[in-house]
C-alpha cells in the first residue's frame, strides 16, 4: 500500500472555480435566448463575437505571461456574455470585439488575471466603448423586426473605422414607424414620459441586448442565489436601496420623479444588481461591507439617473462601488467569536 501525506481537511465541498463560473454562464443562457428571439441574427452575432473576443484576449494574455491556459475556468466566458448583454443589440460587431479585448486586457489581465481585478471587467469594457463610440452605444434598434432571423440590422455589419449606416432610415423601411429610438430612461429624462411596468417585465422596451426583460433576469438571478452561486445580500441591498430612495423622491414630488417600480425595472439595474454587482472578485466579503456596498450602488444609480448628465447610471455606480470594495472590507471586519463588543 502506498501512502500519501496530506494536511487536513481531507474532504472538499467539490464546488470549485470552474463549477461556479460555469453555472453563472448557464444561468445567463435564457437571457441570451430571449435577446436572440427579440433581435434575431444581430443579437446572436453580437453575443458570439464579444464572447469569442474575450476568450481570445484571455488566451493571448496567458501566452504572453507564460501562464497556464485559463479558458477552462470559464471566467472569461462570463465577462464576454455579460458584456454583450449590456451593449445595444445593433452595436457594430467590430466595436463589440474592441469592447471584448478592452474588457479582458484593461479590466483583468493588466491586474494579474482571475480574482486580481478591482473593477468588473465587463463594465470596464463597456465604459471603454462608451467613451470610444458614443454614438453607436446610444443607438437603439427595435425588437421583433419582421426579418430579424434572416437579415442583420445594417449597423451590426459596419466596417471597422467607418461610420455605421443610419438606423432610422432602415427602421422606416421595415415599416416600424412607432419606434422612437430612445430608451424609457431617456424618454423619462427628456420628455417626462414613463413606460408601463408590464412592458418592462415582458421586454417590450428599447434597451440593451440583455436588459429588456426584468422578470427573466430576476428569475435567473434567483436561481443562482438559491443554488448559492451568488450572494443574495448584494442584489437585495442594491434593489432595496434604489427602491427606497426612488420612493422618497417620488413621494416628495410625484409629478417630477418616476415611481420606484419604474426605477427598478428600467435600464440595466436588474442585470447590474444580479450579475454585475455580485461579481465575486470586485465585491466585499465582510457582512457589513456587503450591505454598504450594495446600498452604495443603489443610491449612486438613482442619483446619477436623476441629477447626472447621463440617462443611465448603473455602470458607473457599480464601477465606483468596486473601487470602495476593499476599503469597505478593511473598515468592517466582523467581531470574532469571543472578541470584545464593538471591536474587530
Amino acid at each position, binding site marked *: *500500500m502506498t501512502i*500519501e*501525506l496530506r494536511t*487536513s*481537511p481531507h*474532504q472538499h465541498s467539490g464546488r470549485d472555480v470552474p*463549477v461556479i463560473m460555469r453555472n453563472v454562464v448557464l444561468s445567463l443562457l435564457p437571457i441570451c435566448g430571449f435577446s436572440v428571439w427579440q433581435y434575431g441574427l444581430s443579437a446572436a452575432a453580437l453575443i458570439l463575437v464579444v464572447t469569442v473576443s474575450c476568450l481570445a484576449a484571455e488566451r493571448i494574455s496567458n501566452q504572453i505571461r507564460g501562464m497556464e491556459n485559463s479558458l477552462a475556468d470559464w*471566467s472569461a466566458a462570463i465577462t464576454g456574455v455579460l458584456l454583450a448583454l449590456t451593449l445595444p443589440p445593433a452595436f457594430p460587431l467590430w466595436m463589440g470585439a474592441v469592447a471584448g479585448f478592452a474588457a479582458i486586457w484593461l479590466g483583468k489581465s493588466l491586474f494579474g488575471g482571475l480574482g*486580481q481585478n478591482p473593477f468588473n471587467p465587463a463594465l470596464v469594457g463597456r465604459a471603454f466603448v462608451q467613451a470610444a463610440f458614443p454614438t453607436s452605444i446610444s443607438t437603439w434598434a427595435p425588437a421583433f423586426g419582421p426579418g430579424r432571423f434572416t437579415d442583420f440590422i445594417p449597423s451590426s455589419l459596419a466596417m471597422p473605422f467607418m461610420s455605421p449606416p443610419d438606423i432610422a432610415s432602415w427602421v422606416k423601411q421595415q415599416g416600424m414607424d412607432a419606434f422612437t429610438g430612445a430608451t424609457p430612461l431617456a424618454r423619462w429624462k427628456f420628455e417626462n414620459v414613463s413606460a408601463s411596468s408590464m412592458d418592462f417585465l415582458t421586454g417590450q422596451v428599447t434597451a440593451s441586448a440583455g436588459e429588456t426583460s426584468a422578470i427573466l433576469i430576476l428569475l435567473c438571478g434567483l436561481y443562482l442565489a438559491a443554488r448559492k452561486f451568488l450572494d443574495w445580500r448584494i442584489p437585495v441591498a442594491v434593489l432595496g436601496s434604489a427602491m427606497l430612495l426612488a420612493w422618497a423622491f417620488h413621494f416628495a414630488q410625484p409629478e417630477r420623479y418616476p415611481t420606484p417600480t419604474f426605477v427598478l425595472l428600467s435600464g440595466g439595474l436588474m442585470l447590474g444588481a444580479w450579475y454585475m454587482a455580485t461579481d465575486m472578485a470586485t465585491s466585499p466579503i465582510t457582512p457589513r461591507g456587503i450591505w454598504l456596498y450594495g446600498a452604495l450602488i443603489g443610491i449612486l444609480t438613482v442619483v446619477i439617473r436623476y441629477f447626472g448628465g447621463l440617462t443611465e447610471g448603473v455602470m458607473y455606480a457599480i464601477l465606483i462601488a468596486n473601487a470602495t470594495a476593499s476599503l469597505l472590507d478593511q473598515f468592517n471586519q466582523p467581531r470574532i467569536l*469571543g472578541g470584545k463588543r464593538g471591536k474587530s
Partner: protein
Amino acid sequence: MRLPFQKRAATFHHGIHPAYHKETGSLPIRRLPFAPRLIVPLSQHIGKPAVCCVSVGQEVVRGEVIATADGFVSLPVHAPATGVVEAIGVMPAANGKMVDSITIRVYQADGQEVQVRSPRDVDALDRQQLLAAIQETGISGLGGATFPAHVKLNVPPESVIDTMIVNGAECEPFLTCDHRIMVERTQDLLRGIRYAMKASGAPRAVIGVEDNKPDAIAAIQAALPADGSITVKAMETKYPQGAEETLIYALLGREVPAGQRPAAIGVLMNNVMTLAYLGRLLPSGEGMVERVLTVAGPGVERPGNYIVPIGTPLRFLLDHVGARSSAREVILGGPMMGMTISSLDVPVTKGTSGVLAFGKLQLPAQAQRTYACIKCGECVKVCPKFLNPSQMGLLAAKREYALMAERYNLDRCFECGCCSYVCPSHIPLVQQFRVAKAVNREKATA
C-alpha cells in the same frame, strides 16, 4: 434554504454540512484481537512523559502499571496485554517523531483478563482522593486533545464551574465511536458525568448531541437521573458543532473570551468517551488498556467500531478490517482535522479516535489545481470564529505572518478546516495558517 430570521435547533453561527458518512453508527462495537506486538509510548498525553518502571525481559500482566506518572501533569501507562517486555527505546509515533516506548510481545495463548484492579467505593472519596484516583486510571482527553482528565477536572480555586458540558456532538464525518459509546455504555457515561461533576464542583451537566443520533439521545434520556442535574440537548447536525467554543455557544449562548479557557465563564467541557471510560474504570480501579475507535473510509472492507488495545500497530488493525489496495491515505482522527501518517508501523494511542483509509477519489484539494483567490467570501461565511480566512490567505502568500496575528486574529483559528473545505480555488488555507503560526511561534521564542 433557511432564512436568517428563522428559529433553529441549538447551534452556532456559520459552519458547514459536509457529507457525513456515518454508516458505522448502526454497527455494534466489536473487539479487535491482540496484535503479536504492542508498542506503548510513554507519552500519550499532554504533559510530562511517564517514567518506565519495567525492564526488558520482564513479564507483565494486563492492567499492570508499566510506567508511572511524573508529577501532577502526567499520567501512568498500563500494560495493554499480558506478555513480556521485548524492548524499551525509541519507536516511531503517529506524528512522525521517534518517542520513548515500551514494546510488549503478547502471550497469544493467554486469556488476557485484566488481572490488576483495585475496586473502590468512588462515592466515599473526597475531591482530592477522587482526582488522584482519576490520575491512576491514566485517562486523558479521548476526543483527541489528550489533556490529562484529572488536570482538567482540577478547577483552580479562583474559578467556579456552574455547568459541565458533555460533548457528544461527534461532528467529524465518518467517526461514530462516541455515538456507539452513548448507545451501548450509557450507564458508564452517566456515572462518569457524576464523578466529573463531583471532582470539578459543577452543579449541573448538559450533554450536547447532534440530531443525527436520535438513538443516542433516546438512550441517554431514558437513563437520566431524576434530580434534573443532568440534561441532554439535541443540536443541529453541522460541523464543527463539537468544537469547544462553538459547542459552549450553541448550548449556553456564552462566548469564551478570546484567548481564555472556558473556566473563565464557569464552563468545563469533556468528551463523552472520556467520561464513559471514567465511569467504567474508576469503580473497578482498572487502568486504560484499550479504547473504542472507528475504523472506516472507502479504503476499508469491514468498517466499524472496535475495542482496540493501546499500542496496536496500525498495520495489524488495517489488515484485520481488510484495507483495500486502493487505499492511498491513512488518517488518524476525522477527515476534517485528522492527520495523515507516514508509516503503518505506528501504534494506536489513547488519543486515537478514528483510523480512516481513503482512496484516490477522496483525495483533497491539494492534489487538484489551485486558482487565485476569487474573493468569493465563502470562507468568511463558514468560519465559526468569524475570522477572515480570505484576507489571511492573501497575507500568508506574501509571508506577512506577523500582520495576520496582529490584525486578523490568526491565533484564534483552531484549524477546523471549514475554509479549506469550501474554498473554490483549492487554496490550502488551514495549512497556510499552521505555517504562519509556527513561524510566529519561532520568532517569539528566538
